[in-house]
């Protein structure tokens, strides 16, 4: 009970400060001390520093993509996070940007207009035209939101997203190329220069992201931003409090569309070609994952989510990095959650002991039960060689183990105290066996499973996202 005259928020302020102790607390306090443009400068400096360290080709692509997804998440945040409109057609605006750029940067538009030589425009002209067009389409799609809200809006906009894919895939295959897309696009060019390198496009998206974050931060604190958030909280009250709700909703759609289209133009130019499959639902889900993980409604959260999800997803493509991530997460979770240290040491020892015992028993029963190769390569693989049980044909074995591990994890969530700790030991061991025999063999599929797993855990730990604020609907 809080004392009389002190409301709950004040009474809990002490708890909130206590909540963040240790290095994480110091970090969050430091974060709170600096103001927004200082944070932005730090981010820009980090971004430029990355560009200067001479990353290899793969790292450059990862960096470019992660910043691109950060831009997309920030744009989605305008519609979903601020205005509270569930827009599942967002991916189409990304596509409109990319295809729009492609039209002006290849022979496609020229042959469409039966001109010889094409309608190639310098980037400085093409991009604004594409943005205006995307903004107008955004307005039209935004009109739907005047009549529909919530789930209904989501369904209708989802159809718009799917329709875009079918449109570019099927309408006018000679000029739009059908599923072969439009290829051999001109890079960003103008003023006698052009951008060809990945790192060049990395700087382009970095500059766009930084400027966008600054502009949207100011917009969020202006009358427009307040109007959007008011509409999200209570449409009727917003309307009665002088906010023209219809216009404001359409504006949100339009702004989101333009941000996505801008990202699309850079994407098309960097890739050098566009294909319909670049704009399908999995990409949309990934953008949503970025935003939800980072924190709906927060610019910083959207950026962090965009960077984190994309980097994790691309890292997971490589078998060695994947192994580091898998075992790293398990160890981190143990160190974070198991206290005091005596328990932690006992648990780790038990896992190691359990493994050698299981390995010995399995080996005694049948030589072939432990003769399979470990999926992990490098030092992890050789370190675990005599610990995990991997039979010669481990596929079925791995599949069964996977189901066992998932069931065990669900069970562990229900257990408490020392029983849970005991249950953790075999579960982790089986997870490691499953990893070595099955999961690390198919990195692409495992990557998706792991992204899903990370999202589930993160959302359970912080439902409002990393940098989001908890939101109430009805109090």
């Amino acid at each position: 009970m809080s004392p009389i005259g002190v409301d709950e928020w004040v009474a809990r302020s002490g708890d909130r400060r206590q909540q963040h102790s240790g290095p994480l607390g110091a970090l969050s306090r430091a974060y709170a001390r600096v103001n927004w443009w200082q944070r932005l400068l730090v981010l820009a400096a980090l971004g430029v520093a990355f560009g200067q360290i001479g990353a290899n080709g793969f790292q450059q692509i990862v960096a470019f993509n992660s910043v691109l997804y950060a831009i997309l998440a920030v744009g989605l945040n305008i519609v979903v996070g601020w205005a509270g409109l569930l827009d599942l057609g967002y991916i189409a605006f990304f596509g409109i940007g990319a295809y729009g750029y492609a039209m002006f940067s290849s022979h496609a538009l020229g042959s469409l207009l039966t001109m010889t030589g094409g309608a190639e425009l310098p980037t400085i002209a093409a991009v604004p035209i594409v943005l205006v067009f995307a903004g107008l389409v955004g307005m039209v799609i935004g009109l739907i939101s005047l009549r529909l809200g919530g789930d209904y809006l989501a369904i209708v906009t989802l159809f718009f997203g799917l329709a875009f894919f079918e449109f570019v895939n099927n309408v006018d295959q000679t000029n739009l190329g059908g599923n072969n897309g439009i290829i051999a696009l001109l890079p960003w060019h103008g003023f006698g220069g052009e951008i060809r390198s990945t790192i060049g496009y990395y700087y382009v998206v970095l500059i766009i992201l930084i400027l966008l974050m600054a502009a949207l931060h100011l917009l969020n604190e202006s009358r427009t931003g307040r109007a959007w958030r008011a509409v999200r909280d209570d449409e009727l009250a917003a309307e009665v409090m002088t906010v023209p709700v219809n216009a404001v909703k359409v504006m949100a759609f339009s702004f989101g569309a333009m941000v996505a289209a801008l990202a699309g133009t850079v994407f098309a130019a960097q890739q050098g070609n566009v294909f319909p499959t670049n704009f399908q639902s999995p990409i949309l889900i990934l953008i949503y994952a970025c935003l939800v993980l980072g924190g709906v409604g927060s610019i910083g959260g959207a950026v962090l989510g965009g960077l984190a999800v994309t980097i994790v997803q691309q890292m997971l493509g490589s078998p060695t990095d994947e192994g580091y991530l898998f075992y790293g997460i398990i160890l981190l979770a143990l160190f974070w959650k198991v206290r005091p240290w005596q328990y932690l040491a006992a648990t780790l020892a038990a896992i190691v002991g359990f493994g050698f015992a299981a390995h010995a028993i399995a080996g005694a029963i049948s030589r072939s039960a432990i003769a399979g190769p470990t999926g992990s390569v490098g030092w992890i693989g050789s370190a675990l060689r005599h610990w995990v049980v991997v039979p010669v044909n481990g596929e079925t074995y791995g599949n069964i183990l996977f189901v066992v591990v998932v069931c065990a994890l669900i069970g562990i969530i229900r257990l408490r105290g020392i029983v849970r700790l005991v249950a953790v030991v075999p579960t982790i061991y089986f997870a490691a066996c499953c990893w070595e025999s099955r999961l690390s063999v198919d990195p692409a599929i495992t990557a998706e499973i792991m992204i899903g797993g990370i999202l589930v855990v993160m959302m359970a730990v912080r439902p409002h996202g990393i940098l989001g604020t908890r939101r109430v609907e009805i109090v």
Partner: protein
Amino acid sequence: MAPLLELDSVRLAFGGLRALHDLDLYVNEHEIVSVIGPNGAGKSTVFNVVTGIYRPGGDIRFDGKSIVGRRPHKITNLGIARTFQSLRLFLNMTVKENVKTATYGTTHATPIESMLRLPRARREAREVDARAEDVLSFFGERLQGYRFDQPAYSLSYANRRRLEIARAMATGARLLLLDEPAAGMNPNETHEITELIGRLRDERGYTILVIEHDMHVVEGISDRVIALDHGEKLTEGSFHEVANHPDVVEAYLGRNPEALQQ
């Protein structure tokens, strides 16, 4: 002088239910008028037609201009702001932002100007900030200082009611429609809200139309009382005239059973 707000045979029906039936009503400038009546009498419906949420038949004039058929935000811009019986704050926005949101209609900076911090956007931001603090200062210490940046959901019930009034004030309206401002408040707070409504007129020059069930409040503030039942005006006049009017007594308490038997 013509009244500030004038309802001229206003009608509204939901299907077969006549919520308002040829209602005439006026409010003069700087007047405090109370609307009373049992639940379902159509009191809140009067507010909803005046603020443009429902479109009624008949005519409603504000400051001589007909406002029937205009969008709610346009009506508020003309000078009529309201509070809600079931509080409708922007719960996830801060106290100050709640108030600032209501200045949308009186500011004009475009998104581009805001993003580039052009002179008009900066000037308006300063003005809006000053206006919000001024409006909140009207409520004394309760919505001051550290509370500016608290989310609205963290406020107590009474403070939420105050914040709703503050938000309505920030629209720049001349006429405030207060829908049960004392509902759910303890006697002390009720007394305070009574004084506050008086101060709204005396210090800030608002004209006030208020729906209230608490008869102490109605008695304390009203220049004139209007009793409604079944969407029709039963009577109007001073508090004592209305409170003792047989139709009003009947609407609240039912017919005297002895009188029925006779």
